[in-house]
């Protein structure tokens, strides 16, 4: 008798429970399926439907980043697609299951983590992730020292990332050590959990472009599981200067015109050296330079008896000096 009240047929309910039992569905997914797709809402709507207006708001934070035009375009495409899927669903049209695991390719300091963090928030706002936080890990966080240790460590990181984004920096290093290396086990474990917990977290694998392409080529199971690729190009000199100015502005400093000129020259030189193979860390290089400049500025004015507000804010050319870090 009680059975008559269910929306989904008995055979379908049995199938759902069997899928859960064999590990193909997460528990909450199984419960959701048992409730039927048109489940009555709880008293409050948990996730507002994705509106075009909201989507625009979400994109503003991303748009405020310097450069990255190609990345911004791709993100816009992704969200436009998600929005269309929703409208199609509302009209009863067929929708494609969306896989949102991503590959971020680019040199250090090109904004990969920043973009991942913003996108995680966007996915949360769009109701695709429960929490929208970012868990940033690298090889050492995933790979263990003995058999079984790796699965345990990887699982732990995935558990932390549930409801958010798991960001694996320099992911290609997981395949570095050959077949006997425990890195393989970490990849397998990741892939398994991506299947078991579809839609509960999004994995982002990141690293240098060439290395990531090699990584995907040598792991045939991966490309289909990471359908979205974003390429982060190096910043040009003007963009590096723009980043420096914003950093200064946020900390209530300004660059004097001479300082800006010098910064332009230093950036051009660093990029020229990078072209010859010297490591260059883009925005991180700028940050190191600026933080050093603020310290040098403080030292320069240390002995002065009176310092004007203007002086306290202004970084001069002499304050800009490259330090040790690339």
């Amino acid at each position: 008798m009680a059975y008559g009240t269910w929306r989904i047929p008995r055979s379908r309910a049995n199938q759902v429970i069997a899928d859960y039992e064999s590990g193909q569905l997460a528990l909450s997914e199984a419960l959701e399926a048992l409730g039927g797709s048109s489940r009555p809402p709880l008293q409050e709507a948990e996730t507002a439907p994705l509106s075009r207006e909201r989507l625009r708001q979400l994109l503003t934070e991303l748009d405020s980043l310097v450069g990255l035009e190609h990345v911004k375009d791709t993100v816009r495409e992704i969200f436009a697609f998600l929005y269309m899927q929703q409208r199609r669903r509302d009209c009863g049209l067929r929708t494609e299951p969306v896989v949102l695991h991503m590959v971020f390719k680019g040199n250090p300091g090109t904004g990969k983590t920043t973009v991942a963090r913003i996108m995680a928030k966007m996915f949360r706002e769009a109701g695709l992730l429960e929490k929208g936080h970012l868990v940033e890990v690298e090889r050492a966080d995933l790979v263990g020292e003995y058999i079984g240790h790796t699965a345990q460590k990887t699982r732990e990181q995935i558990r932390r990332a549930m409801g958010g984004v798991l960001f694996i920096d320099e992911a290609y290093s997981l395949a570095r050590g050959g077949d006997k290396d425990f890195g393989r086990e970490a990849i397998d474990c990741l892939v398994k959990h991506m299947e078991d917990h579809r839609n509960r977290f999004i994995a982002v694998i990141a690293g240098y472009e060439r290395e990531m392409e090699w990584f995907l080529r040598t792991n045939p199971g991966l490309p289909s599981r990471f359908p979205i690729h974003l390429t982060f190009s190096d910043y040009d000199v003007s963009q590096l200067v723009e980043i420096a100015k914003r950093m200064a502005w946020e900390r209530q400093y300004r660059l004097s015109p001479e300082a800006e000129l010098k910064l332009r020259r230093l950036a051009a030189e660093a990029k020229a050296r990078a072209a010859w193979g010297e490591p260059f860390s883009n925005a991180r290089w700028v940050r190191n330079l600026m933080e050093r400049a603020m310290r040098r500025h403080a030292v320069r004015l240390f002995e002065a008896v009176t310092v004007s507000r203007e002086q306290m804010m202004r970084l001069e050319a002499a304050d800009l000096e490259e330090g040790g870090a690339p």
Partner: protein
Amino acid sequence: MKRSLVMGRSNAGKTLFCIQFARYLGVRDAEWLVERTDGTLERQRISLDTARQLWSGDGQRTRGLHSLMIELPRGKGVRSLWLTDTTGLREDIDESPDLRADMAQTLRAMLESQVILHVVDASAVGRALAEAGRDGSPTGAWGDLDEQLAAFGMAHAGYVLLANKMDLPEARAGLAYLRKRLDKRRVLPVSARCGTGFREVKQHVWRMA
């Protein structure tokens, strides 16, 4: 025979609730029916006091379905029904296959039950809220799992949520959250430890019996 299923997250206090509620309804000499996932059925005569020591407490996870026959007055006679304790639900990603089997058994029983008592540790919800700060969510104490179960329950006349451990101070904030989160009339505050709120639960079960 009709069944009242006591389900919810692990450690919410399901086992203690079953034992205390049975005591409240006048069960003295308890005979338990234990259904395991391998299909075996076993009768065990274990007093409520012993059961409390054996089965409820930290690290004592219930496995399988443990049912007690309870009787409620109905007209001139009595109606009997099963009060069934279940394996706690949790969504660890490293849940083992046999634990999954136990939880699948809970889900199957859920489809067959006339009454669903969803036990939630309101004190843990309150604590998690305090930790999460303003606008935070009570991670770990109330999650996806409970939301989906509640959503399922909204379409089921026999569903109520028992906000348990109301004897603990943090539980008040937890109860307030749960009342906001779903239809207030479906949330009953109880303390399995102290036996408070049992009258309302009894009324609900009686209506469905």
